[in-house]
């Protein structure tokens, strides 16, 4: 019976969309969307109801440890401080691991810089080195000078398609960005290492401005020499 019914072409019913004038309400809500929304709503309602019941049936004489550990300050609940949650050894270990991670990143980034550097030789720029010619007499000096002029004339660069120029420029940008990142990471690493050293035992003090031999903007510490044996 149903197969016969299927044989007759029927009108396809399309899903209704949100009318244009009600676009501001977003997508048109369907029944299954409503079910989800209603469930979530009732769940919240239930939670609130349960909490209210709990509060109403509270025994005022009952004792909880949280009553001692925590308190309300200006109507705001302040949980117990977690300052000493970890022992100093545990804290040191965690710091070491952080430093290790930063160091690893520094090294991997340095490797990438080296890799880029190996294939980016800034060929279009004049090198910043010095070039000395040795001549025996005045004639030779003149000869070298004239050769130098010729060389400068012939330096006119050969044409390179624009898309390739763009690629080269992108490579140089990447190199610069990575170099900057290495610098930042190295600074971070030295700061973290310093903090770790400062937390260790041993008498130390921060040097005054006039005691620092090599001027830097960073703090400099000096440890008291200690006899090991």
């Amino acid at each position: 019976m149903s197969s016969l019914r299927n044989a007759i072409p029927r009108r396809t019913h399309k899903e209704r969309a949100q009318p244009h004038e009600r676009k501001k309400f977003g997508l048109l809500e369907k029944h299954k969307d409503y079910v989800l929304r209603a469930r979530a709503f009732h769940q919240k309602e239930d939670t609130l109801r349960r909490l209210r019941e709990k509060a109403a049936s509270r025994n005022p004489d009952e004792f909880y440890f949280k009553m001692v550990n925590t308190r309300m300050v200006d109507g705001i609940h302040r949980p117990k401080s977690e300052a000493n949650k970890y022992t100093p050894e545990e804290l040191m270990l965690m710091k070491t691991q952080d430093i290790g991670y930063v160091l690893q990143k520094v090294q991997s980034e340095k490797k990438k810089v080296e890799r880029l550097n190996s294939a980016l030789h800034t060929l279009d720029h004049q090198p910043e080195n010095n070039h000395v010619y040795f001549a025996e007499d005045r004639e030779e000096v003149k000869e070298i000078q004239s050769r130098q002029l010729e060389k400068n004339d012939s330096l006119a660069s050969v044409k390179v398609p624009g898309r390739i120029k763009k690629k080269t420029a992108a490579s140089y940008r990447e190199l610069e960005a990575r170099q900057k990142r290495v610098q930042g990471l190295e600074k971070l690493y030295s700061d973290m290492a310093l903090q770790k050293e400062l937390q260790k035992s041993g008498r130390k003090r921060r040097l005054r401005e006039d005691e620092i031999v090599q001027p830097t903007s960073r703090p400099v510490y000096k440890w008291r020499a200690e006899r090991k044996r």
Partner: protein
Amino acid sequence: MKGGSRVVVQPHRHDGVFVAKGKEDALCTKNMVPGEAVYGEKRVSVQNEDGSKVEYRVWNPFRSKLAAAILGGVDNIWIAPGTRVLYLGAASGTTVSHVSDIVGPTGVVYAVEFSHRSGRDLVNMAKKRTNVIPIIEDARHPARYRMLVGMVDVIFSDVAQPDQARILALNASYFLKNGGHFVISIKANCIDSTVPAEAVFAQEVKKLQAEQFKPSEQVTLEPFERDHACVVGGYRMPKKQKV
């Protein structure tokens, strides 16, 4: 290829040296052994109009003083296709491989290295390149390898020893033809670390001049190496005719 080639390779001012522009902006040499890198360097492949492929190897100036000198703008390296080169202080053969690329199948490179450890890499590299002759000997005693080396056009020396000028002179007296050329890289720290680099270079140039060499130019290898210089010149050059 869709969108055209990704890299353009042009010949450099020096014969046998090329410049690749693309994602890289690099000095390179035509690879004699396509498909193989010697020290993990980048390779660049370019398709010609007739469909044949040519491979180039990027030449890292941070690892090669000769590449650093070329980028430093040296006028002549005298190493060109077809020349015979004696290379003192070949180490693992990174630069030697590029020199072998430059001189091509018609030239020859005699690579002298004293250390067995890095000599092993050199020998392995030379197995693939027919124009490299590895010699594991002390460059201070050229008599020990005189049977292996013929007359050469150019001596490249990168030995980093305090008496490197003497070593170069000794080898030149055995193997370098009259009117041949030398390229020597000088590391100031290796010769005298107490005086400024410039003074060391001048002192070395004096020593070379005393040994029948005629230095013609000197470049420092600045962004790539600190306190290094490369001196280029001729050996037993013919006297100029007075007019």
